[in-house]
């Protein structure tokens, strides 16, 4: 697999030189591969948001490098700006960044900054709105008369409309109801499929991660202790517990079983996998 974004010994110190100095990232090597669906998980304050803001050049590394397609994004001003269009970032609670009179204008803010022509902007706005499930008539409304969940969709559409090849989302489902969570995750999945885009999604929820992503990167205390497929990561059950992260309920059950002396693979995380593992254990054929 070909890396699309990499960080090399990336460190970031907030308020350097004051009594509030705080190392939010220390010598972090992070890689995202082209076309993958990557999850970043970590305890509150572990440095997830800080990490992703480096990936599109919003934060400048205190030391270390950020590479996009193999080249340093801080090489020149132009390159940093171009990277921002290539690597789309949706912030935590993005609904608070809306400012235009109409939803349409707000979504078109990004594409317009890219200097596209009106026809292309129009196409992108309508397509982005479709991706996040906004109706045609909503486009002419004021973003401030929408519900919280709809505002969030508008904000996500505002980034999708730039058609980034990497889409990063910081806790896009925080504070939504279960139906809203499912539908936003579905929208992101659609974008991933349709544009062959790389998706990086930050979340607190192991269960949500386990269901959606190809690979998980764990951030803890300004470092990345391990990463891998959900199965590989959940095999570190005890360490995850210690970081206050916990594992999916199913994994926990299997870790317990293992602890009780049952010879069973503890890295399962879905009901389906659990069923197969138990059946295999009981010596029955998998139906």
């Amino acid at each position, binding site marked *: 697999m070909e890396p699309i974004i990499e960080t090399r010994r990336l460190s970031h110190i907030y308020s350097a030189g004051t009594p509030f100095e705080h190392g939010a990232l220390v010598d972090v090597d992070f890689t995202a591969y082209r076309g993958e669906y990557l999850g970043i998980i970590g305890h509150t304050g572990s440095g997830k948001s800080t990490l992703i803001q480096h990936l599109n050049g*919003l934060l400048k590394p205190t030391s270390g490098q950020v590479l996009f397609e193999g080249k340093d994004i801080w090489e020149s001003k132009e390159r940093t700006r171009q990277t921002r269009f290539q690597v789309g970032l949706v912030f935590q609670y993005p609904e608070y960044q809306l*400012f235009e009179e109409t939803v349409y204008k707000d979504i078109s803010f*990004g594409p317009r*900054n890219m200097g596209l022509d009106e026809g292309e902007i129009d196409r992108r706005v309508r397509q982005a709105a479709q991706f996040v499930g906004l109706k045609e008539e909503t486009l002419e409304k004021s973003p*401030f008369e929408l519900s919280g969940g709809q505002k969030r969709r508008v904000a996500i559409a505002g*980034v999708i409309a730039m058609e980034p090849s990497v889409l990063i989302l910081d806790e896009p489902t925080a504070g939504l109801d279960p139906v809203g969570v499912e539908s936003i995750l579905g929208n992101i999945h659609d974008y991933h499929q349709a544009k062959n885009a790389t998706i990086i999604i930050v979340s607190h929820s192991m269960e949500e991660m386990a269901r959606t992503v190809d690979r998980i990167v764990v951030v803890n205390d300004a470092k990345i202790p391990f990463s891998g497929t959900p199965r590989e990561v959940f095999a570190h059950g005890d360490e995850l517990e210690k970081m206050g992260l916990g594992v999916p309920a199913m994994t926990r059950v299997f870790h317990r079983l293992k602890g009780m002396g049952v010879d069973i693979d503890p890295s399962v995380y879905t009901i389906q996998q659990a069923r197969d593992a138990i059946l295999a254990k009981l010596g029955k054929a998998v139906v």
Partner: protein
Amino acid sequence: MALKDITLGQYFPGTTIIHRLDPRVKIIGTIAYIVALFLAKWLVTYAIMLVVLAALIAISKIGVKSILRGMKPILIIVIITGLLNLFYTPGQGEPLVSFWVFTIYPEGVWAACAMVLRIAMLITCTFLLTYTTSPIQLTDALERLMNPLKVIKVPVHELSMMMSIALRFIPTLIEETDKIMSAQKARGADFDSGNLIQKAKALVPLLVPLFISAFRRADELAVAMECRCYHGGEGRTRMRQLKLKGTDIAALILAVVLCVVIGVLGRYGF
């Protein structure tokens, strides 16, 4: 420079004797120091003021670096004041140098140095106050000090409540500004380049969300205060009672002594 780096009026928590002084004493002490600064005349008095300030900084354990950083935004004013003094102080005798329309006399050099030093010390001592006193303590103390004004119907409690709320929300608003700015930059907003009109226009995507969030916060705060039965200053007791301790009284006496000593010395031209 990130907005966060602005240290003007920031509080550095600590436990030194200066941190623990009664905030009223600190305010009065600061005023006393400023008065003394204007009574200072010449080398001896300036030296005393400088030593006092250095001692206070050392005791408070505030890094010289933090003070210098706080000084940055006003550096230009200090420099201009210095230059004006340098060029416009008339002197007797030979000018030091003279070129084009400028002439510099030895007196000018002295005046400039004295003025720059005076401003720097004045700013540093107010920094010392805000660095070692939390905004809550400051407004508490101000309310108590202004209490006598209630007699002439100044709404002291309301004023100080407004002030503490404003102080409380400055860091929040700065953080919010930072966040919205980043979010719009991620959508390609450019806050740095272009002419004045373009720059002003670029602020719209920042200011609209900022105002909306400020109004939302104000609303939420008002509701929260009403839910806790806030009804103004009438009959309100305080959680922290301010009481003068031995060290506070000693500090007050020292402040007065400083004023008197500098006043007397200054009068005799030291």
